[in-house]
């Protein structure tokens, strides 16, 4: 608290633990034990395991083999296929859903608080159903018979019956449509909070200059919510790179690995084929890629963002 007589105090503090030190450790003890056993140890162990060919009794050290195997380029290397699929999925789903959420948030804004809450709740609700439940429903929506609701609906517009999930042409598209039509509640609510925080004087000034609605959105709102967009973009990309549930439940990665994502690939290597070392190496590569992507996005968009 008292910075003026710092040196002496600090000298005494160094000598032994202060009361605060002790209380601090008492308060974090449980959390830190849990953290060390269930997060820190697994992370270290994952790095360690990634250099081994894991066997329950006596793993065999293989050096960087798991990494080189993963990254060795060949047409049949599933890792690149999965990385490509994940990239395609992310590049389409994340920006589109951000744009959608932004548009919806701007549209919700002119209403009274009560109406706003109703809309927020409506958009948030689908997000609280579990991934398993939702994928069960979507599986039937995409039913490949002409009776499937998706086929029926598109049939009105003359689109012929599709084999949505079991054709390499449409399988990825199906997962993307599903992601875009699922809940954007958290993004919308975050955007609305940011929009409500914009000072009215900006708009008043713009009005004096005769700005139209779209000019205001383009030159005032969009730049001012940029930190929010950046935050949602980074978290969106991180989430999208780890996507697992839909691919696992809906297509199992098929057909012909057209929907195998990195998350599913790691799962299969670990829990289907028991190649723990390889899976760990791939998970670590995924971590590095995610970290690099996040830094890149901050660099790209964050130039004029202040916190």
């Amino acid at each position, binding site marked *: 608290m008292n910075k003026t007589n710092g040196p002496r105090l600090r000298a005494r503090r160094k000598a032994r633990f202060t009361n605060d030190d002790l209380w601090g450790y008492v308060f974090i003890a449980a959390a830190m034990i849990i953290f060390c056993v269930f997060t820190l140890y697994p992370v270290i162990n994952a790095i360690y395991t990634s250099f081994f060919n894991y066997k329950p009794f006596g793993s065999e050290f293989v050096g960087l083999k798991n990494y080189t195997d993963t990254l060795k380029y060949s047409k049949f290397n599933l890792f690149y296929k999965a990385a490509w699929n994940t990239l395609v999925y992310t590049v389409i789903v994340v920006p589109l859903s951000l744009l959608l959420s932004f548009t919806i948030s701007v549209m919700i*804004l002119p209403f009274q608080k009560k109406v706003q809450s109703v809309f927020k709740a409506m*958009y*948030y609700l689908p997000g*609280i159903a579990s*991934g398993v439940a939702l994928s069960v429903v979507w599986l039937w929506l995409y039913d490949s018979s002409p009776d499937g609701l998706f086929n029926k609906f598109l049939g009105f517009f003359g689109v012929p019956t599709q084999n949505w999930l079991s054709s390499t042409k449409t399988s990825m598209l199906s997962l993307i449509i599903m992601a875009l039509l699922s809940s954007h509640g958290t993004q919308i609510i975050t955007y609305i909070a940011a929009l409500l925080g914009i000072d009215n004087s900006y708009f008043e000034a*713009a009005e004096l200059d005769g700005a139209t609605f779209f000019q205001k959105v383009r030159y005032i709102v969009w730049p001012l919510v940029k930190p929010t967009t950046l935050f949602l973009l980074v978290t969106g990309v991180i989430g999208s790179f780890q996507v697992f549930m839909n691919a696992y439940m809906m297509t199992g990665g098929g057909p012909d690995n057209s929907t195998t994502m990195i998350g599913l690939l790691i799962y299969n290597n670990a829990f289907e084929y028991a190649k723990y070392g390889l899976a760990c190496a791939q998970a*670590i590569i995924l971590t590095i890629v995610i970290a690099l992507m996040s830094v890149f996005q901050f660099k790209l968009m964050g130039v004029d963002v202040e916190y």
Partner: protein
Amino acid sequence: MATGLYSQHLHNKKVLYLRNTVITIVLVVFAAATLFPIVYMILSGFGPNVSTAGNMRTIFPSRWTLESFKAFFDFSPYSLRWIWNSLVVAAGTVLGNVLFASMAGYAFAKIRFKGSKVLFAMILVAMMIPYQVTQIPLYILMVQKFHMTNTYSAMILPSLCTAYNIFLCKQFFTGLPTPLIESAKIEGCSQFQIFIRIILPLSKTVLAVMAINTFLSSWNNFFWPFLVTNTPAMYTIQVGLKQFKFANETLFAPMMAGATISALPMFIMFFALQKYFMEGVTIGAVKG
């Protein structure tokens, strides 16, 4: 209400109404599109338990009946137990997080102790690590070393105190006035008393938000319970639903009934505690 963004037609009632009507229609249509799978799920659950694809032809079931729900519960003698298991796991996880994460969050926010910065930085870094990294060693640890397959502990322990919740609490507690704590100290309160008597009563909202979010994510968690259970008696409802799906590929209505059962408790919770759900979204976001 309207911020300056929407000041264009305030004096022209007709245009204003027209504009708002158009916006409302667009919003409702899109909301309907995202809500549709849920509505379809619930309605179809009341359809008859027959194995024909023709059932799903319409949005409303051909015949209203509860037999599909019955079919789901009859599928396994443990169906009800799955819900109970989910409840136990979620409750345990919530309890642990509310207790341990709030204590740790308080220490990181308001107690100055050696190493606090380093330890907190570690927790921040941990938040960014994808779950794929920790999952495999955790699996080996819990299943092969501790032999904890099919126990509640195996399902609860790894998420007993998450890095995110510690972060959330720390963020909130940092905003509480320090003089309050200092004066309590001078009055002779120990840190423990301060925490119990002053901090916790001031933090009901953040604790409620944390409890609800943790409960929701625990209830909806499929992956981890799926990995550490292999007897039907210990499945959670999500794992049970997945097994039901794989066993009954053609039974449309019962599958929808099962999905409804797995989601219903969360819907009820959402309608009861909507305010906290909404608050939970913005409370953790960075200040933009």
